[in-house]
């Protein structure tokens, strides 16, 4: 469309209300082309329902959805494009691969449905699988794939139709550490594609590392929209406050060695180049010990307890030098430490629990 070049921003515009069970979904925001927006919120906030409305699997009760000026769903005029007429792709949480088709035929499915000839569709499927690192999966059946492989295939299948809007439902929920690293690399490489990406997640770390903007949804409504740093700076909900405690750390990455000034940590598999990075350590992934723990030589350090906050059945402990981070332990675990303020403790964290992203 010509007027794209006249200063209009091509975007997915969402302004809908939809009742699903007990939840009243009521959201308004836009996703620009090239942008990745993460929808975060606790379970049951209506995040998946939002994706389903955007995909056209359910319709809006009120409001409208449009892409680049084309109306997908308009409750007042009754306009509604079914899913197959929207130039989008949806990567489901359970991947939703077609069990009786090979990986190659799964990836070719969207093209075949659009009338592309079998041979051409298969060639294209192989190309896309090559790009996402699934070249050798083409003849496999879905039931024989690991979770990470199934997700790779699901993403390849979605990319094969060259969608302009891509929807992801909890893309990391079911993956182990190494599959997560591969998935993160995949997501970073997708950033260069000219499409709008909408990622639903309840994992704040993933949201912070993947998204250009974050939409925080609670009980069906948007409570905050902003860049990751804006959301971190001024949290507007309990859920975002939890994100705050995630211990973002600036440092230098070289291979799997992360230098943080006063000390360094070893990080697990990642797809990030050497240089300035932001590392995130979840409060719950740090353990505290009275004595130096046996058998785990990496990522163990001696530190002090600066502050203790007991609430909601959990104990939040602020650690001192050399790494001033907040950690969260169970009350029983904390009592077993038998430590006092300014007392010494040993802290440890698994390499695979540290998430790095380019700064």
């Amino acid at each position, binding site marked *: 469309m010509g007027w794209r070049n006249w200063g209009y921003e091509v975007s997915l515009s969402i302004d809908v209300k939809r009742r699903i069970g007990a939840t009243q979904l009521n959201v308004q925001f836009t996703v620009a082309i090239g942008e990745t927006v993460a929808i975060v919120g606790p379970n049951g906030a209506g995040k998946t329902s939002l994706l389903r409305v955007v*995909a*056209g*699997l359910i319709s809006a009760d009120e409001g409208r959805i449009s892409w680049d000026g084309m109306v997908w769903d308009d409750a007042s005029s009754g306009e509604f494009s*079914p*899913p*197959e007429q*929207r130039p*989008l*792709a*949806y990567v*489901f949480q*359970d991947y*939703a*691969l*077609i*069990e*009786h088709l090979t990986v190659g035929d799964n990836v070719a*499915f*969207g093209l*075949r*449905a*659009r009338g592309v000839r079998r041979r051409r569709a298969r060639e294209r499927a192989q190309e896309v699988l090559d790009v996402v690192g699934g070249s050798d999966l083409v003849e496999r059946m879905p039931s024989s794939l690991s979770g990470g492989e199934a997700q790779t295939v699901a993403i390849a*299948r*979605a990319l094969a*139709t060259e969608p302009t809007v891509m*929807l992801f439902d909890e893309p990391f929920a079911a993956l182990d550490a190494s599959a997560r690293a591969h998935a993160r690399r995949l997501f970073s490489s997708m950033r260069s594609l000219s499409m709008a990406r909408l990622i639903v997640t309840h994992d704040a770390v993933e949201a912070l590392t993947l998204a250009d903007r974050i939409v925080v949804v609670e009980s069906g409504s948007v409570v905050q929209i902003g860049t990751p740093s804006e959301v971190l700076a001024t949290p507007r909900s309990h859920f975002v406050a939890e994100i705050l405690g995630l211990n973002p750390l600036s440092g230098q990455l070289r291979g799997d060695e992360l230098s943080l000034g006063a000390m360094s940590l070893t990080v697990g598999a990642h797809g990030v180049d050497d240089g300035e990075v932001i590392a995130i350590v979840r409060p719950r992934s740090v353990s505290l010990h009275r004595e130096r723990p046996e058998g785990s030589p990496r990522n163990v350090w001696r530190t002090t307890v600066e502050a203790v906050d007991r609430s909601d059945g959990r104990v939040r402990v602020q650690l001192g030098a050399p790494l001033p981070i907040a950690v969260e332990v169970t009350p029983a675990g904390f009592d077993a430490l038998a430590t006092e303020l300014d007392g010494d403790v040993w802290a440890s964290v698994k390499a695979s629990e540290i998430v790095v992203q380019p700064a």
Partner: protein
Amino acid sequence: MSRQQRHDARVPIALAVLGWLAVAFFVLPIMALVLRVPWSSLSDVITDDATTEALTLSVFTSVITTVLAIVLGVPLAWLLARSNIPGRQFIRALCTLSMVLPPVVAGVALLASLGRRGVVGEILDDWFGVRLPFTMPAVVIAQLFVAMPFLVLTVESGFARSAGTVEEAARTLGASPWYVFTRVTLPATQPAIVAGAVLTWARALGEFGATITFAGNFPGTTRTLPIATYLALESDIDDALLISMVMVVISVVILVALRGRWVGAIGGMR
């Protein structure tokens, strides 16, 4: 094996006695059949024109019935499993009533509707000169009426099970509802369709009551194998035994081929 397991595996005496009595009840007639069959005259009966004619007619009509049952029954199963038509439970009950109806009653009902004086049959006769009763198509209609519900119920539970995000995923990939049905739903339901078709075929092959009532007993056109068996009883019991044996063999082959698959296929029935 531990003592505990041995103890748990023991069945109460009363249940065991009754259970084995039931086994005997099923096994005895088949064994008796095998014992009494005059194997020496097997080749005579098998090559006998009247028997071959009945066998051919039975196989031919039951296969046609099975094909028609798939063509009509799969869409009906889909309506029952997936659509929001009002009175779905009631429609399901109506469409499967013939399963539990006495076959003779089914035949009478078919005469009342499609017979020469029937509600629809009269119109067919007056307008088109078509008379269905006592013809080969009538055999197929009688079989279809009593046998199709087996396919409908089996496939319906298959459709109910295969529903899920896979079909939605196919839609978001650009597939029309029809494309999704033929490329995703049908293949996923294929085991249920096969199981339902085999059950339907077996029921159609053995159909007697509705067939003899609605289609009669004309050699070559409506005298199927079960009817031939019944008639043979009056003339030559050896023939009846032999023809029965043929049908037992067919039934055993079906059971072995299914290997309990249909039990699984209709296991999810609500």
